[in-house]
Structures are given as structure tokens and as C-alpha cells.
């Protein structure tokens, strides 16, 4: 082996983790650039709230504003989510342990997994669903909450839940999970969060020229209305599949983090990830099952 070769290898060994992360980031971007041209079968419903206002008014306001960017309408949404994928990955890196001694490899690996996760890839850049953006807000909120920065955390959570109202249920679940330890002050923050979420919906709806009441109700329509057809669900299986779709991304990402923090086993996290992947795959490439 040549001397220069040995030097280069030892340099690569020293910086291996960061080279891995940089390469993953670059390849993730490259893949997203290719797939951004692919359209999911239900592509029309991104820009259509139907007469029932199925999706949140804040989401439609955001989509409307994104159309002013000098890119194709669909690409603007997709790139918004694509960037959010990277933000979520960075936040997951912090949540798993960041640069702490002994946790560096695990955190870096999870960062790579988040960037290249097929679940994030399918749900985000392929399907243009904004889960990553909303989840990013909530994850940021959780990290700040743990650092006792409650006001900023609540503000971030408001953005996340307003964008994706079904996540309000997740926040409630999280509050109830640690019920014994929660002081009353925390519940006040939750009350503010819920009220602000509805308020943001109403204001967004008004900005879009919709009635206040209709916009506020859009916060809960995700539970019973099909976002593509705009009609109430008629079949239980379809409803279950849609709910799995709505919560799947969050479950997959949270599952991974929980496994890295030894809250659940890696097998369970992998099973969740694969199950969500199968649900997304079955919707996007319908030959499955």
C-alpha cells in the first residue's frame, strides 16, 4: 500500500461519520431531484379542498402562498416537504443524542436513515404530503419543551398542528401519557395550543375567502372525510388505511427515535417502518395486496 494511500485512508477513517452524512445528504437530494417529476395518482386533491373543506385551511393557505414561488406548482409543495425531510433528520439527530460521547454513531446513523427512509421518501417528495413539515414543527417543539422553553415550543406546536390538525390528537396523547407528572401549567399550554390551532384555521380560512366556521371545522374533517374525493368514508378498511397513512409517517419516525432511546426494541421500530411503507406502497402502487 502506498504512503499517500495510507494517509488518505486514515483521514477518511477519522472523518468517516461526517463523510457518510454528507454523502447521504447529497444522494438524498439527488434522488429527490429525480422523483420530484413523478406524480401520485391522487395528484389533483393537493390543490382542491372540496366543498367540504376536507383538509386544514392553514394547509391550503400555505399551498396557495407557495404558488407565488417561481417553480412549478406541484414542485413548490414537494420541495417544501423535501427541505422539511432534512430538517426532521437534523432534529432527529439532536433528539437521539447528537454529538454526545458514545451516541455519535447512533445519531449519525439515524440521521442517514431519516434522510433516505423510504417512508419519508414516498410520503414527502413522491406524494407531496406535508407530514414532514408538520412533524418537524412538533419535533422541534418537543426538543424545546424538554429544555423548558415552553412558550417557543408551544408556538412551534401551533404551526405543526394547524398545518396537520390530526397531530393535535398526538399532542393530547403525549400529554395524557405522562399524566401523573404533568403540572396544571402544562395543561394551560395545551389549552393555548388547541385554541390557537383553531384560531389559525379560522384566520387562514378568512384569508382564503372562506367562512370562519367552515375553516374551523376543517380541523376535524380529516377523521371522517376522504381527502381525495371529499366525501365521507363509506368503508371501514378505507378509513383504517387513511388513518394509517395520516399517522404512519409520524409513527415511523417516532418509532425509530424511541428505539434509539431504548424505549422500544429495534425490531418493533423496524416493523412499524415496514408496515407504514407497505401502506404507502399499496396506495401509490396499487397492485399490492
Amino acid at each position, binding site marked *: 500500500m502506498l504512503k499517500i*494511500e495510507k494517509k488518505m485512508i486514515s483521514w477518511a477513517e477519522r472523518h468517516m*461519520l461526517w463523510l*457518510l452524512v454528507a454523502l447521504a445528504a447529497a444522494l438524498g437530494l439527488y434522488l429527490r431531484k429525480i*422523483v420530484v417529476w413523478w406524480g401520485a395518482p391522487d395528484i389533483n386533491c393537493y390543490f382542491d379542498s372540496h366543498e367540504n373543506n376536507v383538509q386544514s385551511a392553514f394547509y391550503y393557505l400555505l399551498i396557495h402562498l407557495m404558488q407565488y414561488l417561481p417553480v412549478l406548482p406541484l414542485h413548490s409543495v414537494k420541495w417544501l416537504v423535501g427541505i422539511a425531510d432534512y430538517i426532521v433528520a437534523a432534529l432527529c439527530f439532536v433528539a437521539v443524542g447528537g454529538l454526545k460521547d*458514545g451516541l455519535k*454513531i*447512533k445519531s449519525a446513523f439515524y440521521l*442517514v436513515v431519516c434522510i*433516505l427512509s423510504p417512508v419519508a421518501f414516498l410520503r414527502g417528495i413522491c406524494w407531496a404530503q406535508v407530514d414532514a413539515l408538520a412533524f418537524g414543527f412538533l419535533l422541534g417543539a418537543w426538543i424545546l419543551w424538554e429544555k423548558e422553553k415552553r412558550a417557543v415550543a408551544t408556538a412551534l406546536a401551533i404551526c405543526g398542528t394547524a398545518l396537520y390538525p390530526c397531530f393535535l390528537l398526538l399532542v393530547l396523547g403525549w400529554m395524557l401519557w405522562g399524566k401523573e407528572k404533568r403540572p396544571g401549567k402544562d395543561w394551560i399550554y395545551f389549552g393555548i395550543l388547541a385554541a390557537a390551532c383553531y384560531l389559525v384555521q379560522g384566520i387562514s380560512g378568512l384569508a382564503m375567502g372562506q367562512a370562519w366556521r367552515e375553516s374551523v371545522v376543517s380541523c376535524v374533517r380529516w377523521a371522517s372525510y376522504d381527502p381525495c374525493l371529499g366525501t365521507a368514508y363509506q368503508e371501514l378498511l378505507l378509513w383504517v388505511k387513511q388513518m394509517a397513512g395520516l399517522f404512519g409517517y409520524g409513527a415511523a419516525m417516532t418509532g425509530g427515535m424511541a428505539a434509539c432511546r431504548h424505549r422500544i426494541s429495534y425490531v418493533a421500530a423496524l416493523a412499524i417502518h415496514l408496515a407504514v411503507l407497505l401502506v404507502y406502497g399499496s396506495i401509490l402502487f396499487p*397492485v399490492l395486496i
Partner: protein
Amino acid sequence: MRGMNRRTFFFVLGVISILGMVLRWTGIRFEGVDYRVCLEPWYQQLKEGGTLAALAGYEGDYNLFYVTILYLLTLVPAEPIISIKMVSILFDYVAAFAVMQVAMSAGEETGKGRFYGALACGLVLCNPVAVINSGYLAQSESIWAGLALLGFWYLSQEKPVRGMWMLGFALAMKLQAVFILPIVLILYFYKKTFSILHLLWIPIAIQVSCIPAIIGGCGFDVAYRTYFRLMGEYPFMYYYYPNIWTFFKEAPYYLFGKAAIVLAFMALLMFAVLFVQSGRRHAMKDYLEYVAWTTMTCAMLLPCMHERYNYIAEIVLPVCAVFEKKYRVPAAALVLLSALCYGGSYLGWSPVSHYALAAGNLLIYFYLTWKCFYGLYDGCRAGKRVEPC
């Protein structure tokens, strides 16, 4: 029982070799679909051509190295079905020899090298997948896999030139031999016993294997043109090997094919990082596991995989089970699933759902991944570094 003297060792090897040949001979007259549609017509075409110039007129999609072997077989006074199968069978023995050497080396750490070597040899030669592949179907997997494993063995013994020549011939035989390269590159980073310049022997070996074809009138770059043609030949995510893409058959290859390649590449890279960063002193039996894992990663995550492309893992994992009891069930399951896949596709057995086969393969793959990664990660967490053995 386990301590085996030299004479017993060779006696057992002889018995195993005869048994392996008997198993293959039972299917020697069987004509698989690939034999009828491809190999036999190619053989006849080369025979009619008569000279090396027939190689230039070859229209099939196999590499010229294998076609040259087919041409040489036309000069042998034997029925094509037997002569073609005998070449594959011969390389079954080469593969068995290479795996036996690795197993003996691994077993020497416990003083039972010969016992493990004989067991490994038996497991390769009597592996149903290997028997069906070469003895029944006249496929050439044993050739590239045998050469690749031999190359790996030479590299692990710090004989890089021989190793690279073997790898070059394996690649010249079939592009799928590239599945062994990740572990070779990991060895390069970890052991630091050979230079990157040694890799240059690979294209030289590929070129040497094409000399008869070039003399026959093929272009100088014929080997590489074949690779490029093959890479875009079947633009499908799923191509009969029950891997993860079985569940995403309808995903368009032109968009998602690259994503699959990147996924496989990053999985291998993460493994390489763990491998290098871990403080473990890797034993020879660990290398066997890593060979099985890296080759299986390629077969499970890359797009457009044929039924036969996981061949190396299918013959190596049962040998890993000799050293590690926990692999017995996964190894048996992998061989069974592969045999079912072969049977459904080539032998006229009633086909088993590819979703079920894919789910089974994925379970085995994830188990193997967990075993390999967890062992290495433990070393990383301890934060110790030791010099490679």
C-alpha cells in the same frame, strides 16, 4: 469425533464429493427452460460457426467469457447438456473448495479446522440450491460465485494479485460477481494489506478473458459494452427474485431504480463505517457472516434481481450456521425459500406466492442485519480500537 486426522479428512471429502456428484447426476438429463431457449441454441450456433469468429456473431446476452467456454465445449466430444452442466458442476467444487478453506481457517481457532472444513464442503456440495442450479438447470452461478469466493479467500490470505485475478474472472463471467466487491473494499479499508492499485488487475483479467473473442473479431471493449447493455436490459424494480421490491412491482424503474441502488449503497456504507469503527477483532467466521450479509444486501435491496442472484448468500449462510447455532433456522429457511423459488420458476413445482417468499427472505435478511450490525455496534460503543488481525 470432531478431531479429524488427515486421512479421515480426505476420506470424508471423497465421500462428500461423490455424493455431490451423484446428486447432480440425477438431474443431468433435465432440460430447463434457459437451457432449451438460450444455452442449447447458442451452443449450436457456436458449433456451426466452427471457428473463433463464431464469437463475433454471438447474439445472446451472456458475457463473452462464458460464451468462450461454450465455444470450447463445442470442441469436446460430449453431448452439450452434459458438457455444459459439467462446467458448472466443476465450479461447484471450486466454490466448495474456497468455502472449505475459509471454514478451515475459521475452525483452526478452535483446533477443529478439518472438521469444519469437511462440514462446510459438504454443505456447499449438497446444498439443494447449488444442486438444482448446476446439476438440473445448467446455470452458471457456480462459476462466478466460485471464482468470487476464491478471490475473497486469496485476499483474506493477503494474496491480493491472485485474489484480484479471480475477482476479475468472476466479473468477466457475470456482472453479479460485483456483489462480493463491498466486502473486498471493506477489507481494503480495514486490513490495509493491499493497494487500491491492485484493483487494476480486475479490468486486466476481464480483458484477458476476452482475448479469444477479440481474436474472433469482437471489439476491444466488448466486455464493457456487454455490461452496459445488460444494465439497462430489464427496466423493472422486481424481476422474479422475491426481495423488498416484490411489494413495489409497479413502481416505475426509471424513477425508483436509482433510489433502490442508493439504498443498497448506503446500507453497505453504514456497515463499512461500523466495521471500521468497531473495536472488534474480526475472526474468519465473522468474515463469512459479512460475506453472506453484503451479498444478501445487494440481492434484497437492488432492483431487477433474478431468482439466482442471491447464490453466494445461499451457499455461505448454511456454513455460518456451523459456527453460530442461531443461524441454523435462518440458513435452512433461506435455502428452502430459494429452492421453492427455483422450483416454481424452473422445475414446474406449484408456485408459492412471491409475496410470501419475499416476506420470508426479508425476515431472514433483517435478522442477519441485526446480528451483524449489533455485534459491530457493541464494539463501537465500547470505543476501543484494535489493530486488524
